[in-house]
């Protein structure tokens, strides 16, 4: 088991709520909320934005955010959704993305604090993960809601920009003129 971040362990429930509510940097996630549609126009080949642990948490979140329940839906891990999100974040102004690792940690340890469960988000069953995320979506704290939408829209960006997902919703994809066409 990965050691929890010391900032989380050292805080009581009240302190944790304060951390979430007062985090000015997390509030910057609001800027990611509505479209969550951006990718690095440059930055190809840059170092990964998320480290391995953050990637694992992100992957778990994305899997719930884009769960369709369809047996034929491409699994997140079989697509390049996470890679797309990583590339996106790596190409954005740091002022927008600096709070993301903290947001991932808050979601990961959220079940202990908000849901009274003795497990991290990545250790929960899918239904419990959904319930935990719904707590973020409907929280009375604006910062939690904003963080939810930031992560939700990153997930939507990563998954629904994948060609393999388009047949699920009947989207035909680009209609680019053939090379050399009129």
């Amino acid at each position, binding site marked *: 088991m990965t050691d929890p971040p010391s900032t989380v362990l050292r805080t009581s429930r009240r302190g944790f709520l304060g951390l979430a509510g007062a985090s000015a940097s997390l509030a910057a996630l609001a800027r990611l909320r509505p479209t969550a549609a951006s990718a690095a126009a440059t930055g190809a080949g840059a170092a990964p934005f998320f480290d391995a642990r953050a990637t694992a948490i992100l992957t778990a979140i994305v899997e719930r955010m884009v769960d369709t329940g369809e047996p034929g839906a491409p699994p997140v891990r079989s697509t390049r959704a996470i890679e797309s999100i990583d590339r996106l974040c790596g190409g954005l102004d740091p002022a927008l993305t600096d709070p993301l690792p903290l947001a991932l940690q808050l979601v990961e340890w959220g079940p202990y604090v908000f849901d009274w469960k003795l497990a991290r988000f990545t250790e929960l069953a899918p239904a419990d993960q959904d319930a935990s*995320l719904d707590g973020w979506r409907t929280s009375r704290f604006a910062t939690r*809601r904003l963080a939810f939408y930031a992560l939700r829209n990153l997930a939507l960006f990563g998954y629904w920009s994948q060609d393999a997902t388009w047949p699920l919703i009947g989207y035909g994809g680009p209609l680019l003129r053939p090379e050399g066409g009129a």
Partner: protein
Amino acid sequence: MITTLLERGGDLVEQADVCVIGTGAGGAVAAAELAAAGRSVVVLEQGHHWTAKDFTQREDEMLPRLFEEGGMRQTADGAVVVLQGRNVGGSTVHNLCYAFRTPDPILKMWRDEHGLSELTPEALAPSFARVEQNLKVKPIEEGQLNALNRIVRAGAQKLGWSGLVAKHNREGCIGAGYCILGCSYDAKQSMLVTYVPRASAAGARIYANARAERIETVGGRARRVLGRVVAHDGTALGSIEVTAKVVVLAAGAVASPDLLLRSGLANGSGQVGRNLHLHPSVMVAGFFDEPIHAYRGIPQSYYVDQFIDLEKDPNRGFVLMPITGFPVLTAANMPGFGKSLYRDLRDYSKMAAVLALLHDRSAGSVTSGSSPAKPTIEYALTPDDRAQLGEGLVRCAEILLAGGATRVVAPYWIDPIELRPGDDLSVLARRGVREGEIGLASTHPQSTCRMGGDPRSSVSNAFGECHEVPGLFVADMSVFPTSLGAPPQITTAALADRTARHIAARWDELGA
């Protein structure tokens, strides 16, 4: 000549008669007209020079290329998404090509209430005509209406509502539908393929990746523009210094006031950055029995003007417009996650949406933020504007149901409302529109450097020249004295045409 500074590298030091900042509907027109009039012109554009071959029709690639803050610009409270272009051609590269002249009642209001007596339809007619000719504005043909627009028209006709098939600036459109991601076929007559090449052909030196950060005066006149060469992610790579006799500021209604504020110019009235109108919009999604593939074809052709009567009241009203999106944007605008979101998204091909776009009196502000790339935008709806958007929500649902939708969804972030034919739509009016509870979007920020006859209450005069700084002109949507109440690209371009001709005609004085 268009130079991409990222590729060229190094610093930029230039000298010209005129420095134009921005290449959107205002800047490109001003640059082309001034260059054609024989002036030496340098144009600074902070965005990149993307062209049709770069327009891949993919959201993951195009949204960050074409939009400020990668499509994530929004008001400080996160309530309103503000979509603005950040590329050579500005927002005209991603807009949906509605081509309307300034409504006469709006011009009348500008004359009567803002001291702009020169702005008559007759005085502007030559500018409108030139712009429309150069942008190849023409009526959309019947055969070009896609399923989405036919549905909206059918709904309007069934309800007896007033509407029209609009004019647009497209030539040879094949109806792929990817206008908002840039036209891969150069059929959209954006500034990128019209006025920018005209400016270049007339000798203007156009620099992409060139962000203006400060305007300096000498002897009280605008004489120098300083800035930086910027990468796509905003990384500063080099310095820019342009010396000019006249500066035309056309960076848009967010960046233009930010630049004036950073420069400490033209703000004796305290109006720079104030009076921000957004034309905020809300949308309702409708679902049909059969696939309609709303994303194919011209996205916006039909225009419902039943709920705006500018002759009667030039200050209020809203219009209804069809709207569509590709998978990421569509998903992001629908509520919920996981299976609940997919319940709507799986019917993507059967989905049509209508938005209500408000002619707003609400007035927000733009102030300088932590960096030139991130001005702070604040905006709150007045109770009356909130009420109008609430009615707009009802009308969106009504027209979709009249057009044959079997269910509609008002996408409140929590507890969205789903309605079916025969349901009581007043539930939408009762819940209404409040910032933060339902998505609001803006593609038309305006009025932050407003024109006016009185220097105490306005920033610039009827030709866009700043009252306090001779030789400094503003030529973008920020000069609108009020909300326009109509799609703005033709008004912006026509006013810029007029400003440029005014500069050219006064050159003996301005160029001294």
